[in-house]
């Protein structure tokens, strides 16, 4: 299974993946998304219903390396409130693991963020 990548549909759209991601980046990230190999971690998507006391407002947290402040330079506007999703290539098909809105961004040399459904 290939590693997942995070696309933030800000201005402009940017995709972030880990260095271990497999090739074929253009096909994976889609038209209009510039790809950057600075995604360090992301949490596992957790989809719940309320029946057993779960919370439907699931979220994923991510960290992106930002040693020289590149993250800020990549976006014309800080992508808070932008749509974002986590995708993965599975048997040759792109599958959406999680989608939501960037609700939090913080950090300096490492950017920590949250995407909330």
């Amino acid at each position: 299974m290939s590693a997942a990548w995070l696309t933030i549909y800000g201005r402009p759209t940017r995709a972030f993946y880990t260095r271990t991601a497999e090739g074929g980046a253009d096909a994976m990230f889609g038209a209009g998304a510039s790809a950057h190999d600075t995604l360090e971690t992301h949490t596992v998507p957790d989809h719940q219903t309320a029946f057993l006391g779960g919370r439907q407002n699931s979220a994923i947290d991510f960290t992106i390396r930002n040693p020289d402040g590149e993250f800020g330079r990549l976006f014309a506007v800080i992508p808070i409130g932008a749509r974002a999703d986590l995708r993965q290539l599975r048997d040759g098909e792109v599958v959406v693991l999680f989608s939501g809105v960037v609700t939090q961004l913080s950090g300096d040399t490492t950017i920590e963020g949250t995407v909330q459904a």
Partner: protein
Amino acid sequence: MRAYTETLPLRRTTVWGAFRDAKIIPHRYGRCSGSLLPYDQSRKVWVWADHACPANSIESVTVGGQEVAFLQRVASDVTDHPVTFIDLATPVDEGAPAPIATGLGKMHARTGAPIHNPADVIHDLHQVAGNTFPESAIDRFRTECEALSIVVAGTVDSDLQLQEWIDQVCESIGAQWSPGMDGFARIFPGGALEPFASATITAENPIEPETLLQNVYNAAVVNYGHVDGQAKQSIELDAPESVAEYGRRQLEVDARWLVDGRVAHGLARRLLRHRARPNRNITVSGMKPVSTKRLLAPGHTVDLQHPRIPTAGHCMLLSAQTDPISGECAGSISVPDGAVPRVRLVRQSAAFEPEQYAGVEIEAQGDQRVLTVTDENGAPLANARVTLDGEWIRQTDAGGRVNFPADLLTPGNHTLLVEAEGRQSFTCTIVT
């Protein structure tokens, strides 16, 4: 786009200028009742909803309990936004309670039909939030609600999060939802399962079952028919054998979006049939989907075949965490133990024909589908003539049961006509 934790961007009366109270201008759905908002100082022009409503769909307007003459019109307000106005012939006295109207709410943008299917309400709430949410994404739920004749009505007029509004709608009808759910929402418990299992739970899967007495409920009170946030009607059902065994354990549901006693009865019945007995809430790990391209998600059917759990068969996945690297999924299910309890109507606050509460339950037994026909008290209807899709006729046994081959109950909607001596015949739609 807004996250589900954000409040809906509803307009307030301040957009009209020179307004003393900043009240939210409501969005209304289905056939509902509620207080009107004054549009100006004249006290003759009032607002029903912050959108267009079907022409001549306001049935009545009362002031202090007395019906008054009115004219309904859809027009642009001072901001050029379409609003449904109610014009009164005479002004309402300053300080007197606001007029209360009863009528239809929002229309479907494409079809022009009133929005009262829960799926359409949820779709429209996404539109109000400014989120892209294709109607097709919730088709399955719409069909499920149609088959159970579930309609809702309500008013969106407070600063709640998008997810809180969806919670209200789903809780009112006994549905579960998740943004990650395939089809967004499902009736649970008591809804139709997907016909195929997306994963099988076997001895290879680590499980953590938990059964809690506090999760057993054997009496249900559903409050419904709300006007300005206050329930005007209620219905009470119980499971008498379970009450005798565990003591009375009551669940109260504030069904703010329900207006129909028959739907309220159906909700209480479905809840008690699942919850009036011990439930194994099971956390499962290491599940592998049958297709790597189809991630496991809440709402999917899983086939429980675990040697440590005496109950086997299909059940609905209630949560799902997929590890992108291993592809394996952890999730949870809720499996009731023992026989389906008998449920009876104890009290209702409004008059309905008892026949409305009769019902049919379906169980899979190999290549057969066993249908149990019950009356309004949950008692089996013996010797009833059951006609499936106008063609296949069977007679119920002493337990109210009839068998049909699974081939005849293909996935989708089917019609059953039930005729029993000494009672009114009834037709119902079942979903398989």
